[in-house]
């Protein structure tokens, strides 16, 4: 009983901190539909600032106030300098946030190293009841969070600014029409949300040691809580944070601590499947999968002529081998093999993205299923490459189908989170199911390597060409898919899901099948990964890889060549600079932000637009115009309603 009381108390205190993160996320998201991945890192930086100030001998509360200011300032700057420019496309905001996360994490690593630090408690000591112990610090943390929540609710309800914020959240267009400066409201939301993160950082720092690496985990937990509560719903976030904080602590103390992540991601998936709008929202969430929004406004471009298409094809076919043959050393060759392996996965993702417009952050999970199916067959049954392929393909397709089935029930950012949770769940299962997967130690391939005539997996060269052929087949499949009846039905979902439904399409079924198809491609890639790298461990397929696959896709941009170019740039360019890992991360993060801000559609579409301009300049053709203007006014004034 005492343990229970202690656990619940600790859980409630933890939930106070989760609420502070989730409230910040909800604030920003409510207005901008943006998941700011750097939000967790604001938390960490504010904690470090408070830590330094207390080391200088300042009072805890002064340090906490400074941390709030630091958080708010980071929020203000990131909105003014970065996120202001990504508002048209939430996925670009997502990637810029990731870039910022990498940059800030690298900065923190450079200044404070990777070691965990602890902010001294606000008050030392505490009191015991039975065998439970209630520290004054935890009570203070709880009191601050509760007081703050009360003030927030009060301000949102009755202050002028709070009401304007709510109006902008409900309907930005209408709010602008009645004279609310929505842009400024967004800035305020960033300031308030990030200030809350600053405070949360200090408070969490007094409860447990924190390091520069903690930003990722925090943002995912905070985002989970914000989603469960219903995004943009502050009171929902509060209830969800209590449920989540207590649930997590209970699992940790009564079951096995290793199960906590499985609990987290399992809960997210189950809840969102049954309550797609969040735990406390009655409605279904929005009708659209957010697919059209997600791609943003599509700038249609002139279709390439047959000759141009042929040229691109030939150049691409020539470039891949040239790239490899020109690589200076085996290190560069090994990098290209990895790039090719990733490219296959990015193509697997683009089977879903190019057709339905759904961006899923779960590809590493499907890749894991493919690779591990092969690995388990090899380790336990001694079966080789062809068996691996034969079994991994249907198994991964099944997992993909399951993911698609779940995805079909979710919309918008809920969908993103479910896929992320799916990927993380598979990673945790591979880590935990030791008897099957050998856990953390991974599987080392002892099988004889297969060969197909002159090709096989013996040298890096052979590996590269085998994988490149697989990637080329994936591209070919994608190109054909887009022209089939099935592919066009998927396009209908991308362009207008509710219309697709009205025209009689089984939308859920279609989504399930395309995810299964993506699983097939992922499985082939996963088996190739296993047989070229010869060792797999859960760490190779972490959620970070799922996110990286999305980054590669966005970098390359839409189109058949985008994924390959994105993968090569992602893998090779940071290595070319020859920096230390931390500097590399810093440069890569900054580069990511720059690329998204300068070339929001990705490399391939930007290149195509430039090429089209060049062609027009050379041939002096006028820019394409729409020749449908008739002399009468195009839109008659709305008729008087009788």
């Amino acid at each position, binding site marked *: 009983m005492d343990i229970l009381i202690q656990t619940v108390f600790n859980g409630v205190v933890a939930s106070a901190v989760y609420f502070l993160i989730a409230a910040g996320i909800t604030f920003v998201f409510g207005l901008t539909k943006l998941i700011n991945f750097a939000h967790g890192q604001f938390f960490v930086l504010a904690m470090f600032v408070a830590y330094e100030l207390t080391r200088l001998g300042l009072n805890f509360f002064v340090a906490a106030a400074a941390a709030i200011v630091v958080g708010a300032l980071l929020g203000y700057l990131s909105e003014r300098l970065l996120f202001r420019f990504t508002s048209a496309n939430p996925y670009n905001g997502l990637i810029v946030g990731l870039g910022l996360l990498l940059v800030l994490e690298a900065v923190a690593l450079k200044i404070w190293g990777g070691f965990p630090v602890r902010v001294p408690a606000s008050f030392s000591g505490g009191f015991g009841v039975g065998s439970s112990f209630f520290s004054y610090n935890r009570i203070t943390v709880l009191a601050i969070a509760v007081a703050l929540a009360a003030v927030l609710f009060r301000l949102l309800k009755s202050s002028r600014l709070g009401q304007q914020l709510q109006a902008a959240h409900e309907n930005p267009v209408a709010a602008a029409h009645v004279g609310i400066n929505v842009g400024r409201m967004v800035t305020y939301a960033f300031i308030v949300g990030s200030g809350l993160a600053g405070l949360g950082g200090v408070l969490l720092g007094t409860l447990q040691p924190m390091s520069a690496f903690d930003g990722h985990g925090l943002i995912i937990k905070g985002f989970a809580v914000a989603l469960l509560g219903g995004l943009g719903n502050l009171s929902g976030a509060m209830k969800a944070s209590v449920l989540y904080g207590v649930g997590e602590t209970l699992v940790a103390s009564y079951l096995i601590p290793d199960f906590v992540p499985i609990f987290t991601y399992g809960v997210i998936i189950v809840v969102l499947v049954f309550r797609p709008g969040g735990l406390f929202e009655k409605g279904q969430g929005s009708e659209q999968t957010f697919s059209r929004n997600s791609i943003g406004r599509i700038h249609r471009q002139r279709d390439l002529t047959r000759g141009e298409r042929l040229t691109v094809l030939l150049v691409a076919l020539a470039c891949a081998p040239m790239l490899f043959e020109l690589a200076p050393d085996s290190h560069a060759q090994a990098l290209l093999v990895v790039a090719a392996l990733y490219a296959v996965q990015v193509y697997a993702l683009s089977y879903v993205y190019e057709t339905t417009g759904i961006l899923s952050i779960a590809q590493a999970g499907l890749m894991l299923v493919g690779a591990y199916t092969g690995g388990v067959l090899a380790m336990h049954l001694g079966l080789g490459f062809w068996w691996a392929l034969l079994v991994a393909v249907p198994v991964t397709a099944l997992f993909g189908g399951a993911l698609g089935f779940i995805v079909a029930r979710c919309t918008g950012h809920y969908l993103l989170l479910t896929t992320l949770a799916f990927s993380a769940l598979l990673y945790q299962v591979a880590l935990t199911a030791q008897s099957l997967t050998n856990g953390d130690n991974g599987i080392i391939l002892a099988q004889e390597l297969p060969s197909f005539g002159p090709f096989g997996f013996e040298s890096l060269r052979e590996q590269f060409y085998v994988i490149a052929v697989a990637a080329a087949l994936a591209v070919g499949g994608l190109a054909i898919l887009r022209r089939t009846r099935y592919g066009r*039905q998927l396009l209908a979902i991308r362009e207008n899901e509710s219309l697709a*439904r009205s025209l009689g*399409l089984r939308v859920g079924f279609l989504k399930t099948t395309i995810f299964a198809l993506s699983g097939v491609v992922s499985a082939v890639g996963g088996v190739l990964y296993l047989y070229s790298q010869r060792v797999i461990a859960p760490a190779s397929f972490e959620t970070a890889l799922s996110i990286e696959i999305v980054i590669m896709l966005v970098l390359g941009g839409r189109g058949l060549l985008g994924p390959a170019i994105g993968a090569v740039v992602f893998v090779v360019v940071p290595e070319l600079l020859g920096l230390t890992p931390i500097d590399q991360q810093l440069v890569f993060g900054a580069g990511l932000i720059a690329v998204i801000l300068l070339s929001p559609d990705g490399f391939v579409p930007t290149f195509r637009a430039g090429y089209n301009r060049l062609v027009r300049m050379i041939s002096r053709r006028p820019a394409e115009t729409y020749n449908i203007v008739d002399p009468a006014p195009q839109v008659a004034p709305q008729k008087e309603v009788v």
Partner: protein
Amino acid sequence: MSDGTPLLEATGLTMHYGAVKACTDLDVQIRGGEILGIIGPNGSGKSTLLKMLAGHLRPTAGSIRLRGSDVTRWKTDRLARAGLVMTSQNQMVFGGVSVREALQIGEACRRDTRNAGLTTAQIVEMLHLGEVLDDTVEELPLGYLRRVGIALAIGVQPDILLLDEPAAGLNDEETESLRELILRLREAGLTVGIVDHDMTLMVALCDRVIVLDVGQILAQGEPHDVIKDPAVIDAYLGSPLSFDAEEAS
């Protein structure tokens, strides 16, 4: 043209949102081959009725039968596969592609590929979309947008087409070509249910109209009879409708 057997039959159809009674106990029949108009003042439940028939809304009570089988709980997509398609103002088109691609996508949604019916080329010709085939759908003027929406709906070759305010925002010329289009669709074998405020269009087009007021049927019958009904004039038209006068719309 009408053979008298109801193709779609709703009995006791009711939609209550809490205390708000959008539709109460409506009995509506649509016979094969006819053009049925639904009219009434704002808030009389016309659109709600149409949405219930098309499976967009699930009625609080009542039943809907399509060709005699109960379809009350069917969702939109299943109804569409059974031949009942509705186009509404706000979800009409595939926006980010060219008209040609949009029609290709629509064609891919067709349930029965063998059934000859109207070909895409015929639909393009019928709706005068030839000159905009290569333009991006969402950049088209409203009149074209409506036509693309209707083209998509008839592209899947439904038996019943429900149109929610197709003439709203169209000018007279466009409304006239809409009227001709709907008549041609009927000739091609379609049954049409239509909600609109444009009385001139409705009277000229419909074989039969149903007048709704506060969620109940006020009158139904031949359009020329219905518009002379004093109750209808009182609740909806305001003044007797005279046929050469254009101000009625």
